[in-house]
């Protein structure tokens, strides 16, 4: 979206949020970690275009970065949880403990 001189109204904001959510759901369903600047999967290309048309470029960038940070956080948490699980599982299966 080219930068208008008027701030986005409540309606414009809702349209932007919806387009954003549609696009992110698309890449999530494909199991892809969409990073800012990475190529858009072909199935989601149209949704990406709608997203970029409904929201200001600064907003698109902001949401992409936010999304990436959230994905990183949840991956980190998963890693921690899984490693804890393995530690505990080791103890329960009677493996020799140091």
């Amino acid at each position, binding site marked *: 979206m080219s*930068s208008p*001189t*008027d*701030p*986005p*109204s*409540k309606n414009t*904001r809702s349209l932007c*949020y919806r387009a954003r959510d549609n696009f992110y759901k698309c890449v999530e369903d494909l199991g892809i970690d969409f990073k800012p600047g990475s190529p858009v999967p072909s199935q989601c290309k149209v949704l990406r275009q709608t997203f970029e048309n409904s*929201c*200001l*470029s*600064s*907003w698109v*960038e*902001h*949401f992409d970065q936010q999304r990436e940070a959230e994905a990183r956080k949840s991956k980190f948490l998963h890693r921690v949880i899984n490693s804890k699980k393995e530690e505990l599982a080791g103890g329960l299966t009677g493996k020799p403990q140091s």
Partner: protein
Amino acid sequence: MRLGTSLVRFMLSSATPSTSYISSPQLTASSLAFNKSPYVQILNHRNHIMHRLLSSEPARRSGGWGQAPPLSFQMLLVGLMAGAGVLAGSQVYIDTKMQKAMQTTQQVAGKASVGGGAFELVDTNNKPFTDKDLLGEFALLYFGFTFCPDICPEELEKIAAAVDMVEAQTGVKIQPVFISVDPERDTPAKVKEYVKEFHPRLLGLTGDLESIKRVSKLYRVYFSKTGESKTDYLVDHSIIHYLINPEGEFVTFYAKSYTADNLATSMSENVRKWKASHPDYHPTLKLT
């Protein structure tokens, strides 16, 4: 002293179990040797000591006991009471000191460190608006910008809900205020369109960069443009709501984590406290 000793004696005697109370099978089984049983012997010894302590006769040597202890029971009691008195006294002293210290910090926080200062901005009708225009009622300040993607709309919706809840709970209308930290783009006209979508009473204030810098400094608000574009950029800023009392003093702040409910509860509480200490404030209002 006489009264004291007899009182102590009474207390001790009532604390001493009488031998008829003892009904333990082991003891009754050896009833023939009862009077010489260890238990009774110990009791007798104890009574003997107490008698010696409480009597005003000088200490006498008797088999195996040696001299009477130098400390009499009265002295011990007096000592304990004096000790307790000292402890209580010091506790009261510490409490008052702490209270004074806390009051001073609160006063400093209210007057010197955040808010409570003069600012000059412009309202959505292009009329000058200063801190004095907020006096007389509580105000909730939020710093943001109209081109904000998600946070400002969320926070402003929260404020709108909270302010309505406070009105429902106390009958008092808190003044919500939006101050723009984007002087380059946010003109009074644009801010007018922006704020009316959140709440009819939401006040929108703008100003030139210098005025905005000054009011931000007052409230320790951080703000900074991000990105290189001249027209399409975001403004990074602290996400905090500031509650000001009817005398223009800073009361407290609320972080993003506060829900509308939490906000309303806290603000209503502040309204009640203010009413309790300021009888002229909404004199006809009856607050529960």
